[in-house]
């Protein structure tokens, strides 16, 4: 559930940033497509990284074992 919500947040942020670049740097269709590609690639990369780390901790096979010193 939390996974879907955060993914949605990523999607929303990605779309917002795309719109912002569209509005702020409107330089013709080919430049806009270029900016869109950049934003989408960046969003995808960031989302993948987050998703990987999140999924890996969902059902951990090992648990944190505190060191003796603490």
């Amino acid at each position, binding site marked *: 559930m939390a996974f879907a919500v955060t993914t949605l947040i990523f999607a929303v942020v990605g779309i917002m940033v795309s719109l912002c670049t569209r509005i702020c740097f409107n330089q013709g269709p080919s430049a806009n497509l270029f900016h869109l590609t950049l934003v989408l690639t960046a969003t995808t990369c960031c989302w993948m*990284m987050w998703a990987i*780390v999140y999924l890996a901790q969902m059902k951990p096979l*090992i648990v944190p074992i505190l060191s003796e010193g603490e």
Partner: protein
Amino acid sequence: MGEVTHGGCCPPMDLFRSEPMQLLQLIIPIESAHRTLSYLGDLGLLQFKDLNADKSPFQRTYAAQIKRFGEMARTLRFFKEQMLKAGVSPKSSVAHVDVNIDDLQVKLREIESELIEMNANGEKLQRSYNEHLEYKLVLQKAGEFFHTAQSRALEQQREYESRQLTGESMQTPLLQDQELAGDSSKQVKLGFLAGLIPREKSMVFERILFRATRGNVFLRQATLEDPVTDPVSGEKTEKNVFVVFYAGEKAKAKILKICEAFGANRYPFAEELGKQSQMITEVSGKLLELKTTIDAGLMHRDNLLNTIGAQFERWSLLVRKEKSIHHTLNMLSLDVTKKCLVAEGWSPVFATKQVQDALQRAAVDSNSQVSAIFQVLHTRELPPTYFRTNKVTSSFQGIIDSYGVAKYQEANPTVYSIVTFPFLFAVMFGDWGHGICLLLAALYFIIREKKLSSQKLDDITDMTFGGRYVILLMSLFSIYTGFIYNEFFSLPFEIFAPSAYECRDLSCRDATTAGLIKVRDTYPFGVDPVWHGTRSELPFLNSLKMKMSIILGVAQMNLGIIMSYCNAKFFQNNVNVWFQFIPQMIFLNSLFGYLSLLIIVKWCTGSQADLYHVMIYMFLSPTDDLGENQLFVGQKTLQLVLLLLAFVAVPWMLLPKPFILKKQHEARHGVESYTPLQTTEESLQVESTHDSHGHEEFEFSEVFVHQLIHTIEFVLGAVSNTASYLRLWALSLAHSELSSVFYEKVLLTAWGYNNVIILILGLVVFIFATVGVLLVMETLSAFLHALRLHWVEYQNKFYEGDGYNFHPFSFSLLDEDEE
């Protein structure tokens, strides 16, 4: 047009493909040629082809002019040197006055000869001034010798006289008496020479003098406190004043020779005190005179240099422009009638209008009867690659170009590299504290961009400055991945939520043996802070980062193969789509795509399955039961299907393509289905068609071997490239371990001493280690590894990179060429 009409797979995107280029032919009347080229140079969108490649530089039409401008450039360099010596900096000119190049040449020559004469005079004066200065010193010092010697002699004489007067002393030996008497009677004429000798040579000088004259000299030396300027070399040297006394002409000749050999300057010197003081005043007067003359000369020279400095930039620009114009004119071929110049060159299609405009303006401005003829040529030659980059994208494009310039209209990896390059860097450099430091450095360069770009920087700073936007993106992504890894100078923070783990019971007895237990939802963003410093931290992070590397790698390699699809579609090469793109996709994803899937499934289900085992036995015994390693139902069937697909994909890649190419070739050759080229009588076109005929030769064995190599490379590469992405894990591990070592071993140890001095010392060491090792060296190594992953693992899937860059004839690019 020789090039294939392209059907794009996607709408045009900036930077994704080279600008469409065309080969232009311009026929320019000779009277307006110069102006035309000057306008085209201002425009800077036309790359001229050298039509006289077979001629040596001296045989060309404008060789004489080039030589002339070379001479002018030399003069300007001479001025620059002189200004540099005099400390006059060239000012950017304010008033824009048109200078004729011929007038300029005359002017430059005049100024140069004036300057040279001034320099020669100045040098002469300076030399004479230095000589006089030395002379004065000699006079003073040697005068002192004589003075002291005389006063001593007087004293002695007085003493002697007094002794004689008192007379009765019986001890007075007779001998002395006689000696003294003898002395005065047979006066030997002692000569002497005075001068200056460099201090380091003085000892040797003395010894040599002594030996050469068998000890029949008397040398007195006095050190000068301040170094004096040597008149000959013009350098400041430490010197000694010497006076050497000798007897006889022979000795004098010897001494003179020795002086010469040692570079000792001699000066005439009079014995009488009166004459000495007279000479001193004379020399001082002369010195004063010389000084004023020199000052006046210098002032005059400074004025001249200042006037040069005010104009220098403009002159130098003009000369460079003229030189480049004539250099380009030399590349044009002279028409048979000798009335026109024929130019050929590449230009982006979008610039057609601008080029035509420039031609028109040039014709009007030079009152030419006919304007230049503009014509688009059709050729099969590969056009240059031209991407319109800006200051942000150019550094990324530079990274790709240093691997290889994209073939004309090939898909440009830069589009995705702008994001993926800093991202992969950040995966290895995940620490938001370090990221912020990097961000500050990048911002410093970006804010002072205007100032820094105008001044000359040393190599390393220049490189960093050039890549400032790359560093900016790298630092932003590092901050992001730092939050994901939850590391701030290796310290975790509970920013987004409390940790998901708690002790099993209130006493927390088994926290160090059995470990904590997950009681809440998964930590929402990044790595749970509780892992930091636990005994199971490394096993957990290793497993996570290793799997992450593989998933990211498979994703990027898939992107690379998809780019190859874009290329195939763009060049309408269906063979590549069906027999390269599809089997490659299948092969990669049936092995490593499947591995990624398994990883994700394992995470989602929390299964205990051993993925190594699954992958290995997928090949060794695919029909065996998976047993406890089964992650989902139907896994065995899926594995069999994938394995089969992978095995089919290999011959699919290898075999059909060469045969199809052969068939295509035969079909083309049999029916002779060449679309006739548009016929123009240009010899070059005939040549280029000949060229392309040459390319049509089809060697089946060669094509087959090529395909074989390609296939083997891909199949082996799929494995080795995936393994290569594990460097993401290794470097990120190294980074976090190093930073935690610095934090714990340096900062915390220093803190433990409870001593301010040790704490400060520890802090200093920590800062230096962080900056030197983590921020500089680790940045460099992560940069290089990200570079490798892009150049090799990503680009070998689609990038040919055998094109050449578009180098337009442009005045704005002149500076770089010149220096």
